[in-house]
């Protein structure tokens, strides 16, 4: 079967909403083609969404990260209070926070892509000629997109596997693990959107003669 046909099967499996069918289809090579298209289409859709709703452009990933942060802090803090004051503790107080941490980490990662604050050794890049700087920024964009593509592809399969196994979060009665896992491909699709958006800005700056690389400062935007 050709890779295009396999990618078509992936779409059919998703539409069927049957985890077993999805799991089977996601294991084929067609999944790589499908997830590549999904990463790009999702990324461009995110760019379009940010243009239409600038509020989301500023706050989407950051808002999700902050919300997760506060929920984690609250669950752990109240868990300790519960134990000391009421001599009890809800069983999921140590099992749900790690999933929320995962969401916070990857949405936060996407936000840092937007701000270009991921740790890097920029000393040589700052001293490069403009065309070389543009080349380096394009290399970044390609590498980030590849990263997103791989993670979207693999985590979709993991989510389908988890759904097929009816894996439940420990300490809960009916909270499915895949609900949380499915946020990973979403975070990486949004990350792809940030990569595309950044590259478009870089290209515009390159053509207009504006500064291409600026020293990023952590926390400067808050």
């Amino acid at each position, binding site marked *: 079967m050709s890779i295009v046909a396999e990618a078509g099967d992936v779409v059919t499996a998703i539409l069927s909403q049957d985890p077993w069918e999805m799991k089977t289809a996601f294991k084929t090579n067609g999944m790589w083609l499908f997830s590549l298209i999904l990463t790009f289409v999702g990324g461009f859709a995110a760019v379009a969404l940010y243009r239409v709703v600038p509020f989301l452009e500023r706050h989407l990933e950051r808002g999700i990260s902050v919300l997760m942060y*506060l929920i984690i802090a609250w669950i752990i803090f109240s868990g300790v209070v519960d134990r000391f004051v009421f001599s009890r503790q809800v069983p999921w107080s140590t099992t749900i926070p790690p999933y929320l941490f995962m969401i916070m980490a990857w949405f936060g990662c996407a936000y840092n892509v937007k*701000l270009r604050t991921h740790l*890097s050794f920029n000393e040589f890049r*700052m001293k490069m000629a403009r065309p070389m700087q543009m080349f380096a920024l394009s290399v*970044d964009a390609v590498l980030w997109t*590849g*990263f997103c593509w791989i993670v979207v592809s693999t985590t979709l399969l993991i989510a389908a596997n988890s759904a097929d196994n009816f894996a439940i979060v420990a300490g809960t009665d009916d909270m499915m693990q895949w609900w949380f896992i499915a946020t990973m491909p979403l975070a990486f699709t949004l990350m792809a959107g940030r990569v595309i958006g950044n590259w478009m800005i870089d290209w515009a700056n390159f053509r207009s003669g504006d500064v291409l690389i600026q020293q990023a400062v*952590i*926390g400067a935007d808050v």
Partner: protein
Amino acid sequence: MTDGTLITLISVGVTFLFMMGVPVLLVIFYWVVGCSFVTGLPLLNAGSELLNVFKNGFALLAMPLFILTGDLINQSGIARRLSDFAYSCLGWLRGGLAMAAIGACGLFAAISGSNSATTATIGSMLHPEMVKGGYDERFSAATAAAGGTVGIIIPPSIIFIVYGFLMSLPISDLFIAGIVPGALMVLAMMVACFIICTINGWGILIRLSFIRVLKTAIGAWLGFFAIGLVLWGIYTGKFSPTEAAGVTVGFCIVVGLASFPLNKIMGSDADTPVEDKSVLSMFVVEGFTLFSIPRIVSRSAQITGILAPLIAVSVVMQQQLSDLGAKEVIGGFVMGMGGYYAVLFTSMIIVFFSGMVLESLPVTIILAPILAPIAASVGIDPIHFSVIFLVGASIGFITPPYGLNLYVASGVTGVPYFRLLRYTVPYLAALLGVWILVALVPDLALMLLPNR
């Protein structure tokens, strides 16, 4: 082409990417991807590990919470009070303000667990005052950078959490083992600072006043309480480190919210000199409003969004290295050096040079699982080795070319990176001295652990 040649080429390629300024996260990830193709390991493995690191990492949750604690104590004004206290104790000495900056780093580190947060907070707070006080701006920036290194040694510490998580060691024991070496690092840097400032005649001396010390100590009571809460909870086993972090966050939020209206009623602000403040007003810090919490958390979320993914890809890299047999190769090399001291110092040299080119988290995640078992096999106590390893990793924060604290200090003070390098040398020497001392005297790390 053999697998070894291909992996060497991949390693050279990603090093080139690193030098080109590609983010470290991507450099590590693509090394993993390249090696996966060579070894035939499915990429699904990488994807699932990026998820599992968090899914199975309740202990790791202490990291974001201690980062948030750092931001909360900074915004609430507690950090300022701690630095005021340090200055009132040390301001009568030559270089007192610079020494106070290092002391404040130590106190801040005892509540927060992050080196960069320590450098950023103390650097942005005291750098302008140091420059105003006649210190060279490069020295001032270097002081903030060096002071921040204790951020991950004095408990609580993000990197001890990661180390304990990886090596299945009790994080509370690691925290306690870091207390004395962390204090020694502070002391050694203060001595270095005193010598440099005396030689250059930097700093304006203030009179040592018992009243001022007492007043600022009262002003810093909330900071001391938070330090005591963390240490008591962990030391007595009442909380796990993650819970201690959650409790400290809760404490800081309650204090911040309660202090804001009280401080308004008292009418004092952060800029009022200590002498002009009433003793009563010293009990209350500036605080913050409910509406400013998202802004504070947002900054912490940004830092977590940098560090947590880096931990995840480093774990994947460590697994890849393990599959490639790096443990056996490095192990054979280190063991070939001889017995206890040879293994100890070879490990230290490896950590030191790795710290020069990598961030401390990847250094820890990649090297600790390789070096720690070798150290244990020659009789080095695992907790002692963890402290040696992490003091070395913390020194990496001020060693070029990749010294994270140097970047942070440069960012918050505006002093260009390369210009502050020279002034880190005395601090580096002091820290290396402490490192060797801690390596040679295990009791420095183990004395507070009665069961060891």
